[in-house]
């Protein structure tokens, strides 16, 4: 992988791995069992500046390129995908505010997000609306006073909802999609923790109820009508990059834990890794890991270059890597045998967490619809161009 990175990116990656080894890896199992990440651990992310990875330095962030952001997610994802989920949603909220916020909104919200004094959460999914975001039922209506809005509705499966201080909420105003920022302490906002997920258990998911919450006009991000076409896609793009790279870290974890186990565990005179069936599992894991790395770095680089194919490349990276992580986690448990079925092993947590990577920021099936349709449309366009050329 280092061949694709600059010296600075490689140095940053080494720093991220050290951070994860010291501050995440030893505690990830404990956090998973407690279904909670301690405030002190979240604070460490802020102190390291990682929560401001995507925020320019003029707002107190690191202003890193997207490849470096991807490396950060990969390094932390190796240790704990739930912990990495904080980075995911922080980047989703930050980039949406950065892109579509007013100068005043950027100056107000980005510095505390960059320092980690404020944790963001992306409130899009509803109890009855997942992949089909055009069907949102959360609604805004004009307020009788001060030109603001009143927000009513419910959101569900909101990552970091249990402890976030700021929510980027999507709904509709007269059928026009709209996004706005809602601080945690807003009157009328109820937050209900969601417990007992199969994986990603420490990511603090919550259900949100907005009971006539007053929204000042200064909290609207973008303009009415552009919430789903422009504001959400900017955040979701970073959400998918973060999730793809986090899944890549999980995949690397499965590979490293499997090869290490296979090299040391003995069955009679042989090592586990001497068995052809185990070698097959590890071969697929290793090949998937290499392929996933290339797809993830291609997606990150396309975003850095502001390439118009950045969305497609990110869909491909997330689609492939999350599925490869699920395969690898299943195979890693197989390599570890009974030991892998116990919660004391890292691969048991990987197994439960990997499946979540296939669901969040767009399910595998949604990716298939978008990518499959896109590839066929590209072929149609090619045929149209050939016809035009032939007739000219």
């Amino acid at each position, binding site marked *: 992988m280092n061949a694709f990175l600059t010296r600075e990116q490689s140095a940053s990656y080494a720093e991220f791995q050290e951070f994860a080894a010291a501050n995440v890896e030893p505690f990830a199992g404990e956090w998973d069992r407690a279904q909670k990440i301690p405030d002190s651990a979240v604070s460490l992310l802020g102190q390291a500046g990682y929560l401001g990875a995507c925020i320019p330095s003029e707002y107190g962030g690191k202003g890193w390129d997207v490849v470096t952001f991807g490396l950060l997610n990969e390094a932390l994802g190796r240790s704990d995908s739930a912990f990495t989920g904080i980075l995911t949603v922080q980047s989703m909220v930050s980039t949406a505010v950065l892109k579509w916020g007013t100068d005043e909104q950027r100056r107000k919200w980005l510095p505390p997000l960059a320092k980690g004094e404020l944790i963001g959460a992306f409130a899009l999914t509803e109890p009855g609306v997942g992949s089909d975001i055009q069907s949102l039922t959360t609604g805004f209506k004009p307020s009788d006073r001060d030109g603001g809005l009143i927000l009513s509705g419910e959101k569900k499966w909101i990552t970091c909802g249990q402890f976030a201080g700021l929510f980027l909420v999507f709904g509709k105003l007269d059928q026009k999609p709209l996004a706005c920022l809602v601080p945690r302490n807003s009157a009328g906002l109820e937050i209900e923790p969601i417990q007992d997920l199969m994986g990603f258990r420490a990511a603090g998911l919550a259900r949100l109820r907005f009971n006539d919450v007053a929204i000042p006009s200064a909290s609207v991000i973008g*303009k009415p009508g552009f919430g789903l076409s422009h504001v959400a896609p900017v955040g979701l793009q970073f959400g998918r990059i973060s999730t793809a790279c986090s899944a890549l870290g999980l995949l690397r974890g499965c590979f490293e834990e499997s090869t290490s186990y296979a090299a040391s565990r003995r069955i009679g005179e042989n090592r586990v890794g001497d068995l052809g069936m185990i070698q097959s599992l590890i071969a697929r894991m290793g090949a998937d890991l290499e392929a996933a790395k290339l797809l993830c770095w291609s997606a990150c680089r396309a975003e850095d270059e*502001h*390439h118009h194919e950045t*969305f497609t490349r990110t869909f491909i990276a997330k689609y492939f890597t999350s599925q490869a992580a699920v395969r690898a986690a299943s195979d890693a448990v197989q390599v570890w045998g009974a030991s892998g079925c116990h919660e004391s092993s890292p691969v048991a947590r990987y197994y439960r967490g990997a499946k979540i990577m296939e669901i969040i920021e767009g399910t595998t099936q949604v990716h298939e619809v978008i990518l499959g349709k896109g590839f066929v449309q590209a072929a149609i*366009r090619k045929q*149209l161009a050939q016809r035009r050329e032939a007739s000219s």
Partner: protein
Amino acid sequence: MTNDTNQVNETVRNFINNSINIDGLGDDENLFETGIVNSLFAVQLMTFVERSFGIEIGMEDLDVENFKSVSATAAFIRRKSPDKAAEAAVRKERETNP
């Protein structure tokens, strides 16, 4: 129509033609009303415009009128940054006739 106007229109037209599946799209045809673009098209067009013409699209530019057609998008680019539009036209001209 000036040279840079032609070049900006052509650049935008090529991008849009490469993103949709109909032949013979008119420069004034409304992209969003006819339903010929998918849900990601709006941000893809934005990304393309920002990268190709070196301009930043912000909250104040969020207006369907700015991006509803080839002509509207090209006009937005010239309004937003006439110098960048002219530079892009010169660059394109050099690529075509080196």
